[in-house]
């Protein structure tokens, strides 16, 4: 059975420091009054336009196996297919900041208001990431297992060898259209500021992997392991 919950904006809104860091600004007091005002304006627009919401459902390993196979486009070996069979619990989710905030960002860029558009874009993206973290926390509260080193992490289609086309089967199971998310022909979610995936819970060791998969040789980013 699936559940739908709305996030409180204050629970997922990123810290000012974090937003500035995204812009390469190491310290708040280094920026001009103008940038401070820009941030305040972006936060105001963010609060007015974002409607964060999630749909989630527990799923058995057997059913998840089928979703993970997706359209058959995954890399031969991926971190997720090594990790999920060892999980205690799997929760499928899709969340969005809503269509209004994504539309507002596009409008701001069309109006050449790049500074406000980018600030809002970063705040909305960071909030989407924070909403995923919130889901990890919620799942942690629900689990009976409060042992040390217990870790609940989200993995997403599009992440390290799990092809983005995996979103199709995920959608067929979860029906995120109930909260206003649809998939386009390239398997991308509309509205843009949306994240889907599976929460995998178990002791932290199971999440560890070496980044020597076939696709890793192509990829310069070695940050996949940093979130543990």
């Amino acid at each position: 059975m699936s559940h739908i919950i709305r996030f409180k904006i204050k629970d997922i809104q990123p810290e000012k420091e974090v937003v500035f860091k995204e812009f390469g600004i190491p310290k708040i007091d280094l920026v001009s009054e103008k940038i401070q005002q820009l941030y305040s304006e972006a936060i105001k627009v963010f609060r007015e336009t974002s409607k964060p919401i999630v749909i989630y459902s527990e799923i058995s390993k057997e059913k998840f196996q089928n979703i993970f196979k997706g359209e058959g486009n995954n890399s031969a070996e991926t971190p997720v297919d090594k990790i999920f069979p060892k999980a205690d619990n799997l929760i499928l989710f899709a969340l969005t900041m809503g269509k209004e905030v994504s539309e507002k960002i596009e409008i701001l860029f069309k109006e050449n208001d790049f500074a406000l558009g980018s600030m809002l874009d970063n705040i909305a993206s960071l909030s989407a990431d924070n909403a995923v973290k919130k889901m990890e926390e919620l799942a942690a509260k629900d689990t009976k297992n409060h042992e040390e080193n217990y870790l609940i992490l989200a993995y997403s289609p599009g992440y390290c060898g799990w092809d983005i086309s995996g979103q199709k089967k995920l959608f067929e199971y979860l029906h995120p259209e109930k909260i206003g998310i649809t998939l386009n022909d390239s398997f991308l979610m509309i509205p843009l500021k949306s994240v889907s995936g599976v929460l995998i819970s178990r002791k932290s060791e199971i999440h560890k992997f070496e980044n020597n998969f076939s696709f890793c040789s192509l990829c310069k980013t070695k940050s996949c392991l940093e979130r543990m």
Partner: protein
Amino acid sequence: MEILNQISEYLQQGDDDKVFALTKEAIEQDLNPKVILDNSLIAGMNIIGEKFKKHEIFLPDVLMSAKAMYAGLDQLKPLLASKGISGLGKVVIGTVQGDLHDIGKNLVGIMLKGAGFDVIDLGKDVPPEKFVETAKRENAKLIGMSALLTTTMTNMKKVVDLVRKDNSDIKVIIGGAPVSKEFADEIGADAYAYDAGNAVECVKELI
């Protein structure tokens, strides 16, 4: 000329209202639109670019200046077009098919426009054929692609292959967090840029 310096100054301060008003005034004074463009708007953006490179200002400052630049450029565009004057060259940019991450690509577009290029931004999730067809139709000299997913990086090669198949002299530049110089070499792209400022330098070198 005083008014051109003033436009450049206000552009650097990110004051779009002032840049709008002064550009209007400069046009009314019958100053050559190409001179207004080069000596005030592009000159101002070049100074901003340099300051950004030296970490004297931050990205939002650059973006506010870019908005101010447009307040002037939008008035000059029809005048430049009527005189048959174009910018530094046309470039087509976009995020590759299957990918939605466009924050980096947008920055690259803004910086290229600020440097004086005519940028056609195809947006995100752009099919390989669309990059090449648009570049040919628009007589663009360069295609710039961005990818953030390891599963979509491979679509960059499809574009390079389409360009090479036609024996076209369109250059290809790529970027995005997982992309590297090695990957660019491997797929036969002309250049890899690690950030938006570097993208401007690479494009200037290529065309």
